């Protein structure tokens, strides 16, 4: 430590000390106060007049008086005490938490003649830290609780969907079977109207079966453990494209895939994403030839997005929001090529499935379209641990 001049001698230094936020005190090697800045007055409540010439010990709580001797001991041997956190007592009797640094003061000859002490009131600081820790713990707990609730709710929901779908099939089978029996055994005796009615019952039953199968698919496709692995994006996309091409009779142009950036995800589930997005891209091509482009982009936070772009019927901003809801279709029945068998059940569950898969990855999906011209769906698959 460099020799320090008498504080009073140096007006400039005195000004700095006086304007400091921290209490700056000097004392003799016996612990008698020799200087007391303005912040010391604020922190400890004693004025300079009250403290100069007095032992610093008045600031120590009874159980800590021993500390002063230990501090002075170190100082006398030329050592510093750094960021020592302790408790002191203000003039008004309140205890405060302080962080103190004490260093020896030497005279021009290098002898230790006293100590400078810088003290910072950290009471508020500590209180904030403690409440912050508490808040954090609380928040963590809440997140954990909520996650568990959600996981539970999801499992419950899936179990419910599966059970209901299975249970709904039994009465439906009866409906279908007995309708058939009625037609076969009594068809000849039924008035024409009655036959039509029976036919309508049969048709409604078929429709219901389709709906139930769709629900079962939705819960089946999106349930189970999510296994993150590096995705062979081009291969996955081309496999789906071939499936779609087969369903349309194979008259599709090539699908352009340009995906240089790696992405992680559950390969089976991402395959289902491609199946749905690509079959939509072909189904809703309208009168235009299906032209599909798959490419990637990176956003501000370096997340990789995958885009599926196609020309066709498109959709407006409102429809872009709506179409992710289960059983929602935004085009009239005769607009899309719903006639194509094998391109989904046409239930409006495809994008709901895709959204759920994306969200299970901790990712996000968005859609933008130009009505009558083009459609684009893009998603990222999150990064960290998958949400279950």
């Amino acid at each position, binding site marked *: 430590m460099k020799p320090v001049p008498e504080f009073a001698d140096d007006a400039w230094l005195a000004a700095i000390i006086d304007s400091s936020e921290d209490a700056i005190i000097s004392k003799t090697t016996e612990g008698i106060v020799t200087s007391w800045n303005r912040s010391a007055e604020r922190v400890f409540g004693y004025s300079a007049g009250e403290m100069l010439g007095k032992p610093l010990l008045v600031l120590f709580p009874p159980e800590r008086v021993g500390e002063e001797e230990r501090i002075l001991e170190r100082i006398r041997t030329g050592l510093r005490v750094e960021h020592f956190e302790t408790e002191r007592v203000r003039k008004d009797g309140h205890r405060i938490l302080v962080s103190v640094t004490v260093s020896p003061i030497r005279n021009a000859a290098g002898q230790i003649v006293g100590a400078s002490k810088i003290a910072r009131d950290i009471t508020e600081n500590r209180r904030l830290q403690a409440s912050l820790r508490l808040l954090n713990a609380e928040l963590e707990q809440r997140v954990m609780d909520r996650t568990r609730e959600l996981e539970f709710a999801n499992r419950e929901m899936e179990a419910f969907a*599966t059970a209901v779908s*299975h*249970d709904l*099939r*039994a*009465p*439906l*089978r*009866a409906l*279908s*079977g*007995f*309708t*058939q*029996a009625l037609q076969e055994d009594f068809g000849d005796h039924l008035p024409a109207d009655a036959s039509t009615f029976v036919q309508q019952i*049969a048709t409604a*039953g*078929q429709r219901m*079966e389709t709906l*139930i199968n769709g629900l079962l698919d939705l819960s*089946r496709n999106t349930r189970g453990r999510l296994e993150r692995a590096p995705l062979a994006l081009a291969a996955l996309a081309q496999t789906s494209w071939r499936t779609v091409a087969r369903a349309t009779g194979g008259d599709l142009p090539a699908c352009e895939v340009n995906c240089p950036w790696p992405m992680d995800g559950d390969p089976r589930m991402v395959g289902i994403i491609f199946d749905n997005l690509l079959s939509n891209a072909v189904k809703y091509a309208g009168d235009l030839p299906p032209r599909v482009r798959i490419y990637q982009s990176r956003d501000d936070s370096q997340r990789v997005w995958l885009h599926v772009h196609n020309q066709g019927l498109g959709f407006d901003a409102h429809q872009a929001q709506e179409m992710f809801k289960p059983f929602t279709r935004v085009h009239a029945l005769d607009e899309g090529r719903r006639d194509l068998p094998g391109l989904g059940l046409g239930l409006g569950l495809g994008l709901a499935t895709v959204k759920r898969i994306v969200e299970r990855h901790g990712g996000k999906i968005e859609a933008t379209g130009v009505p009558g011209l083009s459609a684009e769906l893009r998603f990222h698959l999150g990064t960290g641990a998958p949400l279950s």
Partner: protein
Amino acid sequence: MSHRPACLLLVEDSTEDEFLILRAWRQAALDVRITIARDGQQALDLLFGSCPQAPPTEPRPDLVVLDLNLPRVGGFEVLERIRADERTALIPVVILTSSDDPVDCARCYQLGANSFVPKPVDAHQFRDAITRLGQYWTQSNLPAAP
């Protein structure tokens, strides 16, 4: 082709399904004697005795057609018990169920089922599946040697 009609135990709790199954086999003129159990416990009683309904002359069935979702004792357990007992271990068991869950299917084969047939909802497909099942397991397929 066996000289006596095949004996078949149908374990089915739904009377509607029972009606449609029997109707399909009748229409296909399947030569079978059918005993029906309404739940898993009844099926076990019929197979292992202790059931007053069991005709004393009734031999063990040549085939068990088993639903999974059954009152009292479930289908999985019935299947396990059939396979665990040497008197019934060799009887072919066909699972005929509403479920088409691959998990259920795998479990049935693991427990020793000979076939897993999900019940189609559509009436035509249902009749078709039931008919083929009946024909294969009672006519094309030799019963296990006693």
